[in-house]
């Protein structure tokens, strides 16, 4: 009965218990987490901006072409911090602040790669590297595709 999908709704006893338990559960400190995320996310972006500035001023990049090496530097820093076992501690403190920027994306890939090194390079590292990042790429690319189609259509109809 319990496994029946239609009866998936909670029984009165379960509902009663969950209400009872929820009252005794510490809540996620949402406001505190938001402030931390804002600060850390902001710091990461500021570092990125500084790196970009260096590329523009010392390496003859333009504002547009400097983006690629900047992202590469941030990814390298993030991967290094993941390997040194620091990034997960930053993540616990900063939450979305260190998860949303490109550094978070690099962390999901490198942490999975490190984790599965013990299963070898092919089945382990290669096979699991995109365990967390894979869905971001799949849905990211797909939504970009949909948005592009919409844009092209509107343009073709003379809307832009």
């Amino acid at each position: 009965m319990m496994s029946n999908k239609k009866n998936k709704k909670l029984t009165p006893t379960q509902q009663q218990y969950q209400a009872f338990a929820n009252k005794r559960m510490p809540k996620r400190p949402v406001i505190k987490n938001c402030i931390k995320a804002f600060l850390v996310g902001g710091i990461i972006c500021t570092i990125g901006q500084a790196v970009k500035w260096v590329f523009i001023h010392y390496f003859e990049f333009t504002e547009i072409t400097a983006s690629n090496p900047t992202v590469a530097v941030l990814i390298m820093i993030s991967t290094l911090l993941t390997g040194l076992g620091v990034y997960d501690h930053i993540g616990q403190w900063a939450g979305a602040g260190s998860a949303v920027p490109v550094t978070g994306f690099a962390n999901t890939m490198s942490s999975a790669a490190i984790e599965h090194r013990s299963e070898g390079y092919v089945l382990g590292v290669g096979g699991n590297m995109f365990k967390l990042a894979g869905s971001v790429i799949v849905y990211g690319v797909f939504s970009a595709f949909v948005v592009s189609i919409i844009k092209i259509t509107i343009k073709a109809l003379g809307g832009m």
Partner: protein
Amino acid sequence: MIQGHQTWVFESKPVIIASAAVGGPFEGNGALANDFDKLHQDTWLGQGSYEKAEKKLLEEACEIAIRKGGSKKEDVQFFLSGDLMNQIISSSFAARTLGAPFLGLFGACSSSMESLSLAALIADNKFGDNLIAAASSHNSAAEKQFRYPTEYGGQKPPTAQWTVTGAGAALVRQQGEGPKVTAATIGRVVDMGISDPFNMGGAMAPAAVDTIEAHFRDLNRETDYYDIIATGDLGSVGHQIAADLLKKHNIKMDKQRFTDCGILIYKKEQPALAGGSGCGCSATVTYGHFLNRMRKGELKKILIVATGVLMSPISYQQKESMPCIAHAVSIEM
């Protein structure tokens, strides 16, 4: 002999001749570091993977328990063990090393008391002597299997718990000197519909309460019979819920008497959030801390209620709720 619905009373009182607890670095920095027989500086234990490290922890705990009991590997008649890994590889591989007839168990984090109660049952019925009951868990191996990669920077909520890197083993004999296993209450599966794997304590609390109620009902005992009643790994959140549930069910439970292995094992300043969890939690705290206190004479009677969540990463992803269980074992000096 069965008494009531779900409690075994071991009339011959099998004895825990010796016990051992082995832990990792986080446990070494914890509140009960002195109660471990061996602590490792490195979570890898010099092995090539976390899974191999967990196997090594379990092997060491068994070895130390056998040695302390003045026994030999060859004299172990049965080995009963459980862990959290898929297909309980830690236990099975340790059994390969030990070479004794082996019963592999899975009760998630309740495996520690599941193996002890079955070992006592075998000894009590004279179906075997010199048995090892053990359980193990490894923080990184468990995180890898059940959650995210260990170095992944995701934020955990305050209800999350820290899987203990450790293994505990007990050498059980029909007769001898030491703490005696007098009764065991085998728990039912209780599912209150909670599906958040970062809230294990909240999910397991009703299972613990169900088993505690059954134990005292079956044996017609009062809770003050025991010096300590310790749940396995409810953590601070689940333990509070369990305490309040017991009160709601009109079971008198002293605050000093009612504790939790997951709360005891770490210091407050350690980043363990709601506390310790895993098979290794109740196993190391019981076979290290509590039994040491019993041998020193500080405790006479204890009840360990090891709690477990019987879920898998796949059942969680398929949006199933988490069935929970608790087994209680009464140990008396």
